[in-house]
């Protein structure tokens, strides 16, 4: 057997193992009906004991801010305040914020961020001294928050004695473009399933919003890291390693709805930022203080896996092409097909996931959406790998500025009746 064949077999086996582990973890919530039932919020007891301070950083978000605040104000919980954080160089958003604040005096506070370099963690840190509630909740300016969410979170904090509660976030505008379909499903699998596995195994990168932390715990941790591009992931790692108790719950009915980036370029920038943020968290090394070896290994694996995943999405199909065209011995060629098994199974489960997604959110999924899903998976893998490459390059060359995602409100239309969406 030639060296090339040995290399092909080795690479195939590694890729197959990686793809199989990823698939295994991604499908965590659906392992058994009991696991699935265990991922939901426990039904609230109707009592309200905690007070919430909901932080809402808004930067050039005039289009969606007002709607988001309106939804938040509809919350059934009594004890909450909203702190909108606007930049000193962004008078348009500040104007909208002040206007909505007048509509609900005492509920809404507008804080101005005077940092020269603006980013989300710095904005959140600016607001932290003003927080009065027992619990700090973070939302993004384009989030659609369900009125019942706070009651559920209140109960979850009390019932489990948690320090952190992470609720579900779901991109909803799957119909907008080919990549938004992939993006929506990515969120679906992450919040519905994968995050619960992380919570169970002792290492959790938190999400960027619908995350609730006890104020004293957050203050003791000195808030967010203003230099980190993935401040949410970083916070999760730091709180995990300090022994905080994290609870994850997902309910399709009260999930926070968001929209996908408005263009492939925006998606690329957003993903580059996340990947680079993961790299930064990895280099910071806070995860080394996690209590168990398993949790540390999981942290290392999780923080590097976006890169592996992105590349394997491209390398596996290429490997198959090589296997077919390069006239390898039949046995070697068959081995190179092994990584395709978990990859194709992932696609199969994504099809089921799209069906389930449609059912959970009462959206009408048509046959062409399934076709888009299948056809779009390779281009999407290309986008993700490009983002991963960019992230490595930017980190290597020291470019660490914040590339912001703008929002147009595409997910708001998704709440119209399904027929209208399909039309």
């Amino acid at each position, binding site marked *: 057997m030639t060296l090339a064949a040995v290399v092909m077999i080795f690479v195939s086996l590694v890729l197959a193992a990686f793809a199989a582990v990823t698939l*295994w973890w991604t499908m965590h919530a659906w392992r058994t009906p009991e696991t699935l039932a265990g991922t939901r919020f426990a039904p609230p007891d109707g009592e309200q004991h905690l007070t919430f301070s909901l932080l809402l950083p808004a930067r050039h978000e005039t289009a969606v801010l007002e709607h988001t605040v309106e939804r938040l104000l509809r919350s059934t919980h009594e004890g909450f305040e909203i702190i909108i954080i606007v930049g000193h160089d962004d008078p348009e958003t500040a104007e909208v914020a002040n206007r909505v604040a007048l509509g609900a005096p005492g509920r809404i506070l507008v804080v101005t961020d005077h940092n020269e370099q603006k980013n989300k963690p710095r904005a959140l840190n600016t607001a932290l001294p003003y927080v009065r509630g027992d619990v700090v909740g973070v939302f993004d300016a384009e989030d659609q928050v369900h009125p019942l969410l706070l009651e559920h979170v209140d109960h979850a904090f009390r019932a489990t004695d948690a320090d952190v509660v992470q609720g579900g976030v779901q991109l909803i505008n799957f119909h907008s473009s080919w990549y938004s379909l992939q993006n929506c499903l990515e969120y679906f699998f992450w919040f519905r399933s994968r995050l619960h596995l992380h919570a169970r195994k002792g290492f959790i990168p938190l999400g960027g919003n619908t995350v609730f932390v006890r104020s004293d715990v957050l203050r003791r941790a000195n808030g967010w890291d203003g230099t980190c591009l993935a401040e949410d992931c970083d916070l999760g790692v730091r709180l995990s390693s300090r022994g905080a108790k994290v*609870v994850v719950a997902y309910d399709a009915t009260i999930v926070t709805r968001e929209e996908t980036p408005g263009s492939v370029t925006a998606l690329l920038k957003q993903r580059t930022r996340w990947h680079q943020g993961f790299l930064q968290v990895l280099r910071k090394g806070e995860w080394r203080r996690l209590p168990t070896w398993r949790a540390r290994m999981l942290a290392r694996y999780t923080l590097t896996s976006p890169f592996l995943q992105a590349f394997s999405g491209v390398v596996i199909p290429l490997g198959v092409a090589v296997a077919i065209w390069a006239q390898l011995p*039949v046995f070697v*060629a068959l081995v190179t*097909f092994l990584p395709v098994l978990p990859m194709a199974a992932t696609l199969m*489960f994504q099809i089921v996931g799209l069906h389930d997604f449609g059912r959970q959110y009462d959206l009408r999924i048509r046959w062409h959406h399934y076709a888009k899903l299948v056809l779009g998976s390779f281009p999407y893998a290309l986008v993700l790998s490009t983002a991963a490459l960019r992230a490595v390059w930017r980190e290597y060359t020291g470019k660490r500025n914040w590339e912001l995602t703008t929002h147009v409100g595409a997910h708001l239309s998704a709440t119209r009746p399904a027929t209208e969406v399909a039309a």
Partner: protein
Amino acid sequence: MTVLELVKPAQEEPVQAPRDRSDLYLSVGLTTVVLALLAWNITGFPTASDDEGTYLAQAWAVQHGKGLAHYTYWYDHPPLAWIQLAAGSWLPGLIAPSLIAVAAGRIAMLPLQAAGLLLVYVVGRRMGLPRWAAAVGLLTYGLSPLFLTMGRQIYLDSFAVVWLLAALALALSPRKHLWHFAAAGAAAAIAVLSKETILLILPAVLVAMWQNTARSTTRPWAFGAFASGLVLVGCFYPLYALLRGELFPGEGHVSLIGAVQFQLGSRSGSGSIFEAGSGANSLVRSWLYYDSVILVAGIAATIAGLAIRRLRPVSVAGAILILVALRPGGYLPAMYVVQVLPFFALAVAGVLAWTIGRLDRWFKWGAIALAVVLAATVVAPRWYVGDRRALTANDNAAYVQAAEYLRAQPPSTVVVDDVLWLDCVNAGYPEQRVIWFYKLDLDTEVAARLPGGWRDVDYIVSTPAVRQDPGTLPTVTALLENSTVIASFGPADGLIEIRQVLKEPQ
């Protein structure tokens, strides 16, 4: 909610109730008994058949890295069964070198049959049968003279049906675990790649999964997992053909699709089973000769079982197999019944359990008494005769003597049937010079090895298989005409002759 607990609260060790191992002891105990009966006289009965020799020789080719067959592999059957056989068939011959090859191969089948017996019990339990009924199912399957006959032989169907039972057991997983369903799909694919005809009863596995995931939140995921396992494992076979450039039919090479077309279209039928004298009719008669009990009771129980929810998976399998056997003009292979037996046995046990479970006290005891009396008066005498034959008959003596004779000869060019092929190769005959009789006329590559035609052959071993269709194979006919008997073994109806070829016309 999923809770992340970094410091586990101190837990008291829960007091474990002693695990109930009755199922394990019962199923393993019964399997051991049946296996002992299966192994007893496995070399003597039944007569070694051509097919057994064929599959064993193909397993030999896999073992020796000569590809999927020792002649051109033409996609007649998917290869997974003899690849599995290759994993075990080398061992018995190593321990007892005096055995003829087919006998050694049969011994290698025993672990597989043990798995099949255990799986019948597991499937029965997972369908909701009480312990005694699952045991009745195992015994009905294992003690049937048909099983004690065909279960000993080297058939692809045995591999397929065991894997399908595994798929059923996994589809009925009590935990409804996603990966069990994926494994069920993979097992079903292995079953199909062991013997393609088992594809017909895959709906039984789907029915089992449908029932098992009823009112479950994970049903679509379960079917997604099953489909993944089935398709992704199954696709390796066409992929193999594709990589070899043998997927599509074309000039000068064999192909997978061409073979499928042949199997479905060109294969001549064996007639209707209701038509006296047809091939299918005499085949069914021979099955009934071995064991009418399991066939008659099985058909009745299968039809009744269709109406009982928890018996539906096995009844669907049985019913499909019955309908396929009944179709007029189709081809009915001799080992077809191997796939039928476990489902009939489970249906019988299931209907019995259902009936007894629904009756009140007095009727219940009456029914039990009736079942016992029937078993003692109708079943036991018939099975005793059949099983005794299996344990005592010595039908392979002629083959053993012929193999011994050939071993003692110096290697030469010899034409044999499939049974003796591997014995000659094992005895040191060059593999290129031991020739299956029908390849002489049907395989151009083999014909090319003998430029002088039949005159290049030194010996032909004439067995019933060689004489089966006189006149259809010209080279074989010529060899039989131009040879003299130098040794002969066995009784007249199973005569085996070693014939020396006379090179010059007399």
